[in-house]
């Protein structure tokens, strides 16, 4: 997987430990709102902490909150990776 700076990928495809800025959420109004309420919205910095194997949930840190997101949802959150 290419993980150069500035590359746009979904949270589901980030590697653990990588950080990025949320660009957009490719979901309907419902998903966008639920994620927003938990602090995930465009412009936010986000760090991936871990993911379970076999398309299990992905854990990320936004501000000081950790949230676990199902793989399918995480695949709809597009981030721009930070430079290391």
């Amino acid at each position, binding site marked *: 997987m290419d993980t150069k700076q500035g590359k746009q990928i979904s949270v589901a495809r980030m590697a*653990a430990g990588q950080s990025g800025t949320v660009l957009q959420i490719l979901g309907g109004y*419902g998903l966008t*709102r*639920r*994620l*927003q*309420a*938990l*602090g995930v*919205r465009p412009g936010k910095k986000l760090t991936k*902490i*871990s*993911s*379970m*194997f*076999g398309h*299990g*949930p992905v*854990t990320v840190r936004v*501000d*000081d*909150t*950790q*949230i*676990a*997101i*199902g*793989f*399918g*949802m995480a695949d709809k959150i597009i981030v721009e990776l930070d430079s290391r």
Partner: protein
Amino acid sequence: MKILLMGNPNVGKSVLFSRLTGVKAIVSNYPGTTVDFTKGFMKLGEDQVEVIDVPGTYTLEPTCEAEQVAAKMLMDGDIVINVVDATNLERNLYLTLELLERQKPVIVALNMWDDTKHRGIDINVSKLEELLKVPVVPTVALTGEGIKELVKRIPQAASPPQSLRTPDERWAVVGRVASQVQMRYHRHHTLLEHLGDASIKPVPGLLIAAMVIFSSFIIVRFIGESLITYLAEPFFNKVWAPLIMRLSDLLGSSGLLHDILVGKLINGEIDFTQSFGVLSTGVFIPFGAVLPYVLSFYLVLDFLEDLGYLPRLAVLLDNLMHRVGLHGYAIIPTMLGLGCNVPAILATRILESKRERFIAATLISIGVPCAALQAMIFGLVGAQGMEYVAMVYGTLFVVWAVLGFILNLTVKGFSPELLIEIPPYRLPKLRPSISKLRMRISGFLREAVPIVFLGIFIITLLYASGVFDHIASFFAPVVSGLFGLPKEAVSAIAIGFLRKDMAVGMLGTLSLSAGQLVIGSVVLAMFFPCIASFVILARELGTRDMLKATGIMIVATLAVGGLLNLLL
């Protein structure tokens, strides 16, 4: 006057609530919904005022039923205490702004204040107060810090004029406010945070989970056994038995009243597991055999809950739970079911879809034995050897998994994905934990004791009147033919409808082989939920789904009981 406690989930609202109102709280159901809220009273100056712990919500534009209720409840409140997680200012202030826009008088409790220090956050409280134009009081609900100040300033709650904002404008304001009042400085991860991260990564996480579950099991058993050996047994043998023996002499050692109160004497002595009198077995089962285990189970579960471990377990087990048509969060009601099925079935409300609630509730009532039942299984089956106890647990787990797999394929609808907040680890504080434990124990006693008494009373009457023989011979073909149990076991299975712990106790009087005990225990665990869970099941699922769950239960029990009989 009505004071509302409102805030995001996991901000310590309930702890703050009990700080304000003391122990007397009433849990009520919001009409027409599955959402419960807690109500209590506090003294404010000279007046008694009503305080309501509103379900946690992230926003007043509801995304689920609980949030709808929260938004509706706001309408009849007079003052809002907005509980804000100080370590999570930005996200929490969004709700604060929404509340202010509704023009209700608001006072902000900046809770978890003690956590900000070691999390490297510095908040300028007076600046925040100036920007929001409402009182802001730092509090630590767990220790009680700041509560007096909060109460003192409730009358100052204010509703400054606001412009109505769109969500994006609101987030912009929140961002601006947060950047003006909050300073973050770098600090190293604490040990708890390292542990928090490790326990959610797949490999160390699953290892930790296995260790946590295994040691919980050992600790529950150790505490339960110790309480029985050093407290319950000495009390019952040295104090209670002589008292009952004296009563037995007074009643002339026989007769209907004697059999109801004292039960049958075994070799001229009271046998607490076999006599089956209201005052002998009826007192021994709830207090002597079951209570020690219920106590130690909740002690351990509450610790894990207050620590914040359960959401991590939900993430780790999400994959497994998807195989049975649920997502990881369903592990929480399932674990509760190991204590008692009633709160567990109630807790399935945290699941979003009707399908998930049906699957979870059905699996809990069939495959998850409650603490009372487990205590008796350990006592009775464990006496034959721990491998038989393992057989019972193994069978129940396989039943749970296979049944879930089938339900996942056959029940219509889909199960949504996991989306939950993972709270940081917090070391539980003694006082709130003790009051929670006390509530659970008194709940158990209120529910179990009268039903055990009633059950023993009914059994004695049925035996004495001979009605029992008719029932037994009617069901005998199933019980002895299919399950390979003596026909007297029918009575135990029938009593299982009232209390399963008592039913296992009755199996103990039948001198069964180890294999028969395993079959009997499994059948009792799976078959018909006890009457309390039955009522809750009907209320939560509706009559039709409850009947469906019961049908599944009967078929599964017959199949598994028959199969075990062939194998053992």
